[in-house]
């Protein structure tokens, strides 16, 4: 079990701290190091939350598309999810596919009261997603 993913990321960040105190590091080198730290910090804060987030978002997107896609093209309603539920990469890929369908729906919605209601529902979904996205 050890080192865990968290332990490895914490260790990598600690080693970068050691490097950052080196006197001979150029300003350019310091900047690169800061960027590496930012990236690793993001991964550390988000990796464990990604699978549950994508799983929940896929369910919400599927329901949203079922309601809104028929206004544009029934073919944009997603087929059943075949992604293995514990495969993080497959679930994330499914998320990207569903978001691509949502983009197509947004682009094609009619200028009608139903279309405007769909826009509002999509806006609500996206606001919630941005607020809860751990990545």
């Amino acid at each position, binding site marked *: 079990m050890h080192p865990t993913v968290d332990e490895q990321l914490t260790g990598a960040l600690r080693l970068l701290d050691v490097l950052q105190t080196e006197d001979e590091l150029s300003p350019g080198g310091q900047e690169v190091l800061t960027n590496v730290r930012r*990236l690793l910090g993001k991964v550390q804060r988000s990796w464990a939350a990604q699978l549950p987030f994508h799983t929940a978002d896929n369910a919400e997107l599927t329901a949203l598309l079922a309601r809104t896609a028929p206004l544009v093209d029934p073919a944009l309603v997603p087929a059943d999810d075949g992604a293995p539920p514990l495969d993080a990469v497959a679930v994330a890929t499914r998320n*990207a596919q569903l978001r*691509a369908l949502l983009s197509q729906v*947004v682009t094609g919605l009619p*200028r009608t009261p139903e279309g405007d209601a769909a826009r509002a529902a999509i806006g609500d979904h996206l606001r919630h997603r*941005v607020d809860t996205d751990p990545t």
Partner: protein
Amino acid sequence: MSDESTATLHRLQDFLAGQEGTAGTRIADLRRAGAGRSRENWLFDLVGPGPQDREPLILRSDPDGGLVDTSRAQEFAVLRALEASDLPTPRVRWLDATGAQLGSPSLLMRREPGTCDYRVVNGERPEAERRALAESFCDLLADVHAVDWRGLGLDAVLPDPGEHAARHELDHWEQVLRQDQLEALPELDLAIDWLRTRARPSRRTVLVHADYKPGNILLEGDRVSSLLDWELAHLGDPLEDLGWVTQPLRAGEHLIDGVWTAEDLLTRYAATTGLHIEDDELRWWVVFSTFKTAVMQVSGLRAFTEGRSDEPYRPTRRVLATLLAALTED
């Protein structure tokens, strides 16, 4: 001297040797400028031929990757045309439009005195001084918009979108998005849908700076010595710059809480220019400015993932949340 500095020095020496008026000069104090976000900048002095001759210069070159992809030749032509105006702009000296000699498309211009501080209106200075600076920045923006662009021949360099400035800019930045996006971004598609249905004809066509901010203004004390970074400048609607400076994402750079509000800025601008601005009209450009910021982050992300940039840009939660809040507030 690093290998990179030596290579830049040699390229500069070879380039300058072929330019008029450089006989008997030499390059001194060559160094890389602080990390510019979209350009690679080098500072140096051109010394000679007389014993007292010393011209401070800056070399602005295209990096491999950045937030925006613009033309050095166009920036050079805009700055050259503006030399005949009263605007405080840097004097351009030479251009390598293709990068054949300097490694990448580059322009050389005079290094003007002063310093940039992007947080100056919310910095350490006394409040009255900060407000006066904010007012002078507002007046300078009005001066930019008052430039006689036809008289200066800028319409030979920049396309005139006429009253369709809003659609023209939206089309341009949508094209950048399509070119650079790595995945579907329904947040930005929803913004495009909103913007496309609400675009209004512009009432005036002016020279738009398009990245107007204190971080691009050189100050000597409380005097503006130069307005920099004209790479995004174009002809368009004056509300574009006003939307850029009043958007929530940039409030900390342009406004002072309770002292210099967006309303103060717009009132002063209207008094100077006679252009009275309707809320709805400005809102479009505020939303557009946030959309444009997101697209620039998308471009930065592509540059990073392709190894052309070391800055790990991405469309941030703050930008996307601000954009969606603006779209859905009615």
